[in-house]
Structure formats: C-alpha cells, structure tokens
C-alpha cells in the first residue's frame, strides 16, 4: 500500500461544465477514504480526478498510481450508452445482440481466476452468455464491480458501490472489500453513513460553491459552468465529535413541503372508481425456456399504496413494465389497466397518460439534450424530450417544481450536464407533475445523498397522503419505508 497522493491547490475542469476549486488533500499510505457531501457538490467528480478524469487548470496532482479501478454510475451509464450505440447504426435488417457478459468481464482481465470466483459469488454464471445491455440495473453493476476488482488495481475508487445491490450480494461485496483492505487502498463515494465499512479511516465532505455572477465571468472567460464544488473539510474517523457533526450536517431536513397543483387544462379522462387500477391474472414472462415471472396475480385498487421488493433479477422491473406497457409480453398476458383490457386496440399512450414513472433505466434513456424545465414539462406528454409546444400554465407549474427542488436557477440549463442526483430529483418532479392516478417509483433513491433522499421520501409521503395518486414503490432498502404504504408484494428469484 505504498501510495501517497497529494492534491495541492488543485483546480480541475470537467468539459467546461463543472469545476472543482482549490483542492488540498493528501491520501497517505494505510488510509481508506469515504467522500460524502450534498448532491451536485462534486463527490463523484473528486473521485474521478483520482482516475485521471478532468483537465487540471492549476495546482498539482502527484502520486497517482498507474492502475486505478473505478466503479461509478457515470461509468456504468457510459458503458451502457456505448453498448446501446452499437445498436444505433444497423442500416440492414439485423438485430444486434450487443457484447455478451463474459466478453465484458474476461476480455482484458488481469486476474481471470479472481474474476471467475467473483462471477460465481455474485451469481452471474447463468448470465455469462447474455448480452450486457439486457441485464438489469443491479446485474450491470455487478459486472462493473467484477471488472474493477479483477483488474489488479493499485487504487480502487468505488462510487456508491452498494446502491442497487440486494442484501446477499451486499454482504458478499463488503466481505471481499474487507479481505483486500490490507493490500488495496480505497476511496469510496457514499451517501449513507450506515454503509461505511469499518476499515475506513477518513471522511472527506464536499460542498457546492456559489457560481460567480455572469459579469465576473465575462472578464475571466466565456465558460458557462453549471456547477462547482470544493472539498469543504476532511475528518479523521477517530475524531468522534467531528464525525458526529458531519453526520448531522448530512441529515439536515427541509421543512414545509407542498406539492404544486396539477394543470387544470390537461385533465386526464375520469376512471371508474369501482374498478381496480391494475389487475394482473396469472401473469408470466418467459425468454425461451427461462421463466422470469411465474403466474402472478396482483390487483391494485385505487388508494392502495404498495411496496414491491425482491432481490436483483427477481423480475421487479419486468412486472412494472407489464403495467406500463413497455414489456412486449403485456400483449400475451391477461392485463387490465385503467379501464383497458390490454390488446384490444388501445394505444400505449392511452395507458401511459395515467402513470407517472421514475427509474434508473429511465434516467439512462433520458439522453436527449433539453433544458431542466422541459424535462419536467415532458411529464405532461409522457415523452423523453419535448416535441410539442408547452402551455404557459405548464411552464408555471414546472417553475413551482423547480423552486420546490431548490433548482430554480437551473431552469434553462441542459439536463444532461447536471449531476446524477439532481437529474433524479427532476425526473421525480416529471413523474409527479400531472398528478397521475398511479405513480411508479422504481428505486427512486438510488444514487441520491442523504439529504436528497430525505427530501424525496418526504415528497412521496406527501403524495401518499393525497387522495388522487396511488403509489407503487420499489426498493431494496428496508429502512427507506414510507409512512402510508400498507400493502407489500415480495418477488422471489425463479432461476
């Protein structure tokens, strides 16, 4: 563990859109760090600097080891985007299947033995021949972890490594990290203090930096930064007082939330209150001989808030996509949604108008470049991007949501330049903006920091209190339970 990394008054620029200023930080031999902070403060950016990302504008960065292993949502999204892009240009009539999992893991692998062991431990063996981009969110994350761990890194950077993993996998990963802690220095970005492994020795706290006024910018350069962050303080974990204060800081709660009204001019068709919102009868999903969902009966009545849980690969997202109409096999199942028996000439947009939806996959698919305000307004149209002119009233409501999220100054900034957590908050607003009869939140807190997690959960509780929206909530974390949810459905893994 002979590393010594020094950041001296370092300022780093990320594609002229984000800036880290005046970083002073030393990572000495024998230390393991956690980086934490508010959404948009540059936690992930700081970690990425250690992986050689960003342009150094001043100061110095020394002692970076040659082989750095990096696992992050950004890197995961990039890899997925790359895989999806491979599919983009087939002019001819062929279905591109994408890179298989075994190729993603074993091509250019430094330690195939370890990789093999981890594949088994993580239960990925049955998926080795499947296309990487067909995997679930949790499964792709496991592939990322295996790639990094088996690359024989001199420094391991794990940005939210535990998010999206089920309990069994999480324990396994924590044990593995403990076993290598003596030989590999680690820097972790964590939003949850309770996930901090014991071997962590130091904590770094990041904070947002107020942007200079436009006037001041003009004099310096033409850059249009959407955010900037700094390393606000570092804490030795043995210093109990300081450690506790940091914990408090992250738990700051916002008060007095109220949800903006719906738009009276874009009123949805009335639903018959005596009929269920959703009724699945003996619903099944199969790929070839592999059964993902087996004969599921499920009825959601108006006003019944549900929590759906189950390990990675148990088909949670598949079940949801039967309801939303995104799964092609919704046409071969007995599904009744919002007054429609599926497969009788209704269009998918007639179904989607009743649903608000948030998931990690949606965030990855939301790759169009549009403004933050338009992302919220697109919720009125169930579209990704905007293809219709919005009304003044819709714009007004979007402004109210931006204010609620504390993002009023970002209204016209491009969505894809925001941090991961800020993007998520906007997508939740997008889902809620039309006050849908059914709001589906597929792991809505994935990748959010403590403060924003509290904000989101408080928002969901508010929605649950109201009469008009029924909430369907999917989450791994037992502690993220929501007041007002009284119905539970647990899915088991079939294969």
């Amino acid at each position, binding site marked *: 563990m002979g590393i010594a990394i020094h950041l001296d008054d370092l300022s780093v620029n990320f594609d002229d859109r984000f800036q880290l200023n005046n970083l002073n930080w030393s990572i000495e031999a024998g230390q393991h760090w956690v980086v934490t902070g508010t959404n948009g403060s540059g936690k992930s950016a700081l970690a990425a600097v250690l992986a050689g990302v960003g342009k150094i504008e001043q100061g110095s960065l020394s002692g970076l080891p040659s082989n750095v292993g990096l696992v992050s949502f950004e890197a995961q999204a990039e890899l997925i985007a790359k895989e999806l892009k491979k599919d983009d*240009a087939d002019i001819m009539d062929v*279905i591109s299947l994408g890179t298989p999992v075994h190729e993603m893991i074993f091509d250019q692998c430094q330690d195939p033995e370890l990789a093999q062991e981890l594949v088994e431990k993580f239960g990925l063996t049955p998926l080795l021949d499947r296309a990487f981009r067909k995997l679930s969110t949790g499964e792709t994350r496991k592939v990322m972890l295996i790639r990094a761990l088996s690359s024989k890194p001199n420094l391991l950077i794990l940005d939210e490594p535990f998010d999206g993993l089920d309990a069994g996998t999480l324990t396994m990963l924590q044990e593995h990290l403990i076993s290598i802690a003596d030989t590999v220095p680690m820097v972790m970005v964590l939003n949850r203090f309770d996930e901090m492994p014991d071997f962590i020795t130091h904590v770094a706290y990041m904070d947002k930096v107020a942007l200079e006024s436009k006037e001041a910018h003009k004099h310096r350069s033409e850059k249009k930064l959407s955010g900037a962050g700094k390393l606000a303080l570092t804490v030795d974990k043995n210093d109990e007082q300081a450690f506790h204060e940091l914990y408090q800081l992250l738990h700051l709660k916002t008060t007095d939330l109220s949800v903006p009204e719906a738009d009276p001019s874009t009123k949805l068709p009335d639903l018959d209150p005596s009929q269920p919102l959703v009724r699945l009868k003996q619903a099944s999903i199969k790929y*070839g001989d592999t059964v993902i969902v087996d004969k599921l009966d499920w009825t959601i009545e108006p006003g019944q808030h549900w929590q759906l849980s189950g390990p990675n690969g148990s088909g949670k997202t598949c079940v949801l996509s039967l309801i939303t109409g995104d799964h*092609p096999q919704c046409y071969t199942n007995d599904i009744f949604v919002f007054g429609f028996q599926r497969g009788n*000439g209704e269009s998918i947009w007639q179904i989607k108008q009743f649903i608000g939806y948030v998931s990690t996959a949606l965030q990855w698919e939301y790759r169009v470049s549009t*403004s933050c305000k338009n992302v919220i307004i697109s919720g009125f149209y169930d579209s990704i991007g905007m293809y219709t002119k919005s009304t003044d009233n819709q714009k007004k409501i979007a402004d109210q949501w931006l204010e609620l999220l504390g993002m009023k100054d970002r209204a016209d900034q491009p969505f894809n330049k925001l941090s991961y957590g800020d993007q998520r908050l906007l997508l939740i607003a997008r889902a809620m903006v039309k006050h849908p009869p059914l709001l589906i939140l597929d792991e809505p807190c994935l990748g959010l920091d403590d403060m924003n997690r509290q904000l989101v959960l408080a928002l969901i509780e508010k929605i649950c209190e109201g009469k008009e929206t029924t909430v369907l909530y999917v989450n791994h974390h037992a502690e993220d339970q929501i007041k007002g949810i009284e119905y539970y459905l647990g899915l088991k893994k079939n294969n």
Partner: protein
Amino acid sequence: MANYFNTLPLREQLAQLAKCRFMDSSEFSDGVEALKGKKIVVIGCGAQGLNQGLNLRDSGLDVSYTLRAEAIAEKRQSWKNATENGFVVGTYEELIPTADVVLNLTPDKQHTPVVKAVMPLMKQGACLSYSHGFNIVEEGMQIREDLTVIMVAPKCPGSEVRAEYVRGFGVPTLIAVHEDNDPKGEGLALAKAYAVGTGGHKAGVLMSSFIAEVKSDLMGEQTILCGMLQTGSILCFDKMVEEGIDAGYASKLIQYGWETITEALKYGGVTNMLDRLSNPAKIKAFDLSEELKVIMRPLYNKHQDDIINGTFSRVMMEDWANDDANLLKWRAETAETNFEKTPAGDVEISEQEFFDNGILMVAMVKAGVELAFETMTAAGIIAESAYYESLHETPLIANTIARKKLYEMNATISDTAEYGCYLYNHACLPLLGDFMKGIKTDVIGKGLATDDNGVDNARLIEVNAALRSHPVEAIGAVLRGHMADMKKIV
C-alpha cells in the same frame, strides 16, 4: 418481368421522378383510423420488421407475423424475435388469407419469390406494402389488379424506429402509392395511417413515388454514401502510409474521421462542414473538391444513366442468378485492403484534429454530396429526394465505418447497395490515380504546414459564396428547418 419504369412514356417517367413533397402535420389528423380493426400481417422479422411491428401494435393495431415454414420449424432468429415479443406467428398459408394489409419487410433480393408466394393467398381487395420499390420498378413485378400497393419507408435503421417511438417521437418517413394498383383509391389513407402507427408523422413525412424512391435511393447509396466513402478510405490510407505516417494513426483518422466530419454535415450542411476548417484549409478543401468534381462527374453520370435506363439492375440481377459471384469476389477483395487489415492505433485524436488533418476527406465528402445531388436533379429527381438520398444519409453510413470499418458498412447496407458500392469503387480507384499522385500529407495526415492563417479576402469571399449558394444547401436549410420545427425543443 420487364423493367416497369422503361414501359412508361417519358412524360410519365419525368412526372414520377419529380414526386416528393414534405407533408404538413395537419394531413395526419385521422391518426391510425384507416388501419383500425384491420388485420396487419408482417412478412419477415428482422430489424425493420420487428421494430415497425412493435410500434404499430403499441399504436393499437392488430399485428402478427408470417414466416416461411422452415424458419418456424427450425425456430430461427426471426421466429424468436416475433414470439419472444408476444406476437402470433404463422405460415403464409395460415395468416396471409386473413390479412387486410400485408407488410413485405424482407430483403430486396427475396421480394420476387416472396411476393409470388403470397399474392395468390391474399384476400380480394387487400393491401400489399413495401418499404423499397425495387421489386415493382426494376423487376417489374405485376401485382393482382384488386390489390392496393403502397410503400412506407422509415429513413432510419429499425432499432432507431423503435427507440424514437418509445421516446414519444418518430423518424422521418417516405410514403408512396403505386398508382397502377390503387383500385379503391385508399392507398394514401392507408400509407398515412401506417406512418402514424410507426410514429413517423411526428418527425416528418415525404410523399413520393415508387419510381423517385428507387432511382434516387440506388444513386445515393452507390455513389456518395457507400462508394465514395469506400474509395476515399482506401486511397487516403494508402497515401498516408506511403508518405510515412504511422499506419495505426492513419487507420484511426479514417475510421472515425468520416463520422466526425459528417456529423458537422448533419447539423449544418456542406457549408458547416467546411466552416470547421481554418480559412487556408477551407480554401484548400474547396479547390481539391472542385478538381475532384471535374474528374468524377462522368462516373456519377454513368451511374445515374445506368440506374435510370435499367442497366444497373439488369446486370446486378444477372449476378444474383449467378450465385452472387461478383458480389462475393468483391467482398473478399475489400477484406484484403490494407486499410481494412490495419487496426486503429491507440492514439488520441481530438474532434478538431479530424478536420485539420483530414482536409482531403472533407473535400471528398463535399465533392461526392454535390455531384450526387447535381446528377440526380439533372436526371429529373426533385431536390427533396436528392437531398435525403445524398447529404442526409451520409452520416448514417459514416457511423457504420466508425464501428467496424468497411466490413461493417458493407454488412449492414442492403446487398443492392453493396453491389453498387463495389461497382463505383472499381471505377473510381483508377480514375483518381493521377490526382492522388499530387497529394501530400498537408491535406491528409498532418494538416497544413503553416503558422500563418492569412488568406486573400477576395478568394475567401468567393469560396464562401460558392459553398453557400449550392442548391443542396438551399433545400437542406429548408428540410433541416422542418425537422428543427418538429424537434424544436429537443
């Protein structure tokens, strides 16, 4: 079967070639009504077949798939594609007699046997839809008089047709009605409803004719789109290596260079692509392209003439009948070129460097786009069609080269395009031999060796004016404007 186009009088040929109109969104207010409750049966389940079917079904339409009995018995990929997505799949005998609309989404080469097999099974008064007019126009397929024949062709790969629909949008789409087969006068209504069902009406629909589609599509794909990029790749690579530039670098500059420079073309036409160069480099690229246009114009004319009079399709169909002997030989030769065999080096090339060090490539794209456009419009094809089949599609093809070089391009385009590409390449390589002797690394590989960016004012004004006043730029500005209106906020 005789070439249909050649049976028409000149007046009718010209009228058909000149058909292409950007439709107003108000023309789609009936939505999918004309197809509601009708039984749609798709033949073939490749990327277009599958993804169009998914969209049509999500638009509330009744879609099923018919495959050849062997494909079903052997559970081939097409069978899997359809069944895993929850579609009913059956043989021609089972499904075609029940169909109100049959969508033929098989490759060109199979059209004659497929149509001959399904036509006798089709219901009286049903509709047969194509996504490419080759079978009707070039092969002269005669369709039963009671059947309506239409064409609906999304101008994007199948995967994108689906991805854009799911986002709530669509891809630009060309529609046409075969006037000899429109007994009930419902062809246009069906084609419009089909375009709505795939989401195409949101991105823009061109109303064209079978003839305009075939004659412009063939010309575009074999000259600028595939032929020019293949020839340019081979010539530029060999020149750089001959001049001592690292082969890995040369390979990378070309493989990713076409994609990068044509991205600029996509956003702002030839003008914007040239505007990415420094002033001295822009003038250099302009001069080179003028020279290239003079040398290559007879070749573009020949391709267009052969396409218009049917020589091209006749010769190609002779090769089909000869087990694709020429096609396969040329495909093997392409795999053996030095460019194809040299992997892209592990060097960083910035976006701007692709322009600065690829002046000749920019000149080749400009010359190819303008020549293809000029030749098509001179042959009576309307500017809208000529634009879509030249400039608009160039970035799509360039993307395939970025993925896996010429192999990928030729594997993903249709056999018809691939055949035409090789024809062009074989004629163009020797044609540019003398021209290439005068080429040095300042225009391909290293960039202009000058610290002085000065140029003569008068010359720069001339060059800029020439770029901006080319007719492909005028129509391009209008059509990109339509697209931007529709995609305004994105």
